[in-house]
């Protein structure tokens, strides 16, 4: 079987910190346009997996192939250019810049030193920004400094910053953490829109939300895959019940 037919193929991925294996011989595969949710108890290594894929943490061994390209040897910004976007757990937007500027900075042009010096705010940029702003419900707040947004709005803005990069794979780390019920509903809506033309990898705790969006679920425990399949499948897997759902 040709592995490159997967959008993302993670195989034998291991990382150890001073002997402690945070991710241990992990393998999983993502199909194009799939929504995959990773769940697992605290310390299972979920965030580390995202760190490894986006290059924030270097793997000790194993491979991560994205559309046939090996990511483990690439630098962070090269991985982004390859088409991987990542949202952090805590909203990390540029508080000193306006919403517009936040999106503009993420616009996939003028990413070199010279390119950014020569960058012009032309109509293509304006249109792209406005389109994304519409998607993330912030169309009316474009001139607002991002520091003044609510927590939920910052989360959306960060998602928007990923969207404008037009990535093939979106990785979201707990996108609804700390949101109100209404915001959650809106976010689920947002994700559904996004998944029409993106592959999405989500870390989430909220099982209700997971059930709403996931195509497939991967359960991690102590750096390894414990179970994988539909939400119903993993909910009924005795191993999962033991470590995660049961109490």
């Amino acid at each position, binding site marked *: 079987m040709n592995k490159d037919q997967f959008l993302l193929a993670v195989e034998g991925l291991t990382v150890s910190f001073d002997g402690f294996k945070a991710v241990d011989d992990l393998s999983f595969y993502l199909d194009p346009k799939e929504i995959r949710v990773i769940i697992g108890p605290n310390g299972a290594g979920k965030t580390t997996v995202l760190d490894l894929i986006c290059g924030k943490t270097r793997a000790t061994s194993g491979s991560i192939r994205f559309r046939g390209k090996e990511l483990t040897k690439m630098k962070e910004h090269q991985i982004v250019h390859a088409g991987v976007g990542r949202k952090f757990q805590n909203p*990390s937007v540029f508080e*000193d*810049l306006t919403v517009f*500027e936040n999106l503009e900075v*993420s616009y996939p042009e003028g990413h070199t*030193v010279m390119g950014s*010096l020569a*960058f012009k705010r032309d109509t293509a940029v304006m249109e792209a920004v406005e389109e994304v702003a519409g998607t993330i419900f912030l169309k009316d707040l474009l001139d607002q400094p991002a*520091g*003044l947004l609510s927590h939920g709005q910052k989360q959306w803005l960060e998602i928007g910053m990923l969207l404008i990069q037009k990535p093939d794979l979106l990785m979201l780390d707990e996108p609804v953490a700390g949101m109100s019920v209404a915001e959650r509903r809106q976010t689920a809506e947002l994700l559904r829109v996004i998944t029409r033309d993106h592959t999405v990898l989500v870390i989430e705790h909220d099982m209700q939300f997971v059930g709403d969006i996931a195509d497939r679920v991967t359960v991690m425990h102590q750096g390894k895959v414990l179970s994988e399949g539909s939400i119903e499948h993993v909910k009924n897997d005795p191993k999962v019940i033991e470590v995660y759902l049961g109490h």
Partner: protein
Amino acid sequence: MKNSSPVKWLVSREGLYYLALAVLLVLVLPALLDSFRLNMVGKYLTYAFVAVGLVMCWGKAGILSLGQGVFFGLGGYCMAMFLKLEASTPEATAQQSTPGIPDFMDWNQVTELPWFWEPFHSFSFTLLAVIAVPMILAFIIGVAMFKRRVGGVYFAIITQAIASILTILIIGQQGYTGGVNGITDLQTLLGWNIRTDEAKTTLYFVCVAMLFLCLFVARYVQNSKFGRILVAMRDQENRVRFSGYDVASFKVFIFCLAAAFAGIGGALFTLQVGFMSPSFVGIVPSIEMVVFCALGGRYSLLGGVYGALLVNAAKSGFSESFPELWPYAMGALFIGVVLAFPNGLAGLYQRYVMPLEDRLFKRGKSGDAGNDDAALSGSLGAEKSS
């Protein structure tokens, strides 16, 4: 938001600030001061180059370098080497055992011009070197450090160590560098006597012109997307990285730019003061330069210029009347600025004077306020939220 025509820009608020500075430097000060005092202002202005570089590098990008004196010194030394060679003609140095080389080399039994002095016979090479030498060193340091994600405090300490290394080297290699005395007794630039009052006044205006050139370059960078990325980097370096930017190259670029500004400042310093010595390279002057920038307002380009002018003027004034009090005043200034108004004079201006202006001119709140205050309000906001 965009200032398409220069005229329109000049009557915008930001434009008026620049205009005010230009009027002060080009008209008011030359009218009020004699050539002696004006020359002193010219000397202070050379520090403003460093301060403008620091605003870009420290204020905007969050990279605090405690070694700007190194770049200031390198620029100054490049210029001094050219002037010294011009002063050391075989005729002027006929009484030396090796005529035609700088006097201090002769005293140190150096009998031949060292290879790295040779290119400084050429004025165009010198002009290039004034900018290129500091930039190359900054590039090497920057690449080595930023690619490995060394930043913050570590970067500050390492730049400090580099300042101290360079000082010891210059002092120790006196046969090639003039040692602790520096390169002195510089007289003419391409045959033009730089010691006369007229020359000094001319140099003052050259210095002002160059300063505005640097300010405009800095302003261009600050208002381009590059500038926004710098601010973004200062807040959320990782987010910038995962938005697809090679953060290190941006840092290297801005550090090199600051180094180039400092080098130009150093060269103008040499021209106006008439010598260059290792005492401007070391740790103490480097840190003082940071204070100019901090006092003026680390986020404001113009603030940096005013900071350099005011601190130095205060230093001269204080040390003329109360020499013992100066270190206390300087120390208190450091602490006060940092504790009480971290955004410096520009921050105070923005908080207290601008509302008055607004009322006076009945302007809208957001209006077309320049980028200086945009960045400022942003950072003030950040301060509130932290």
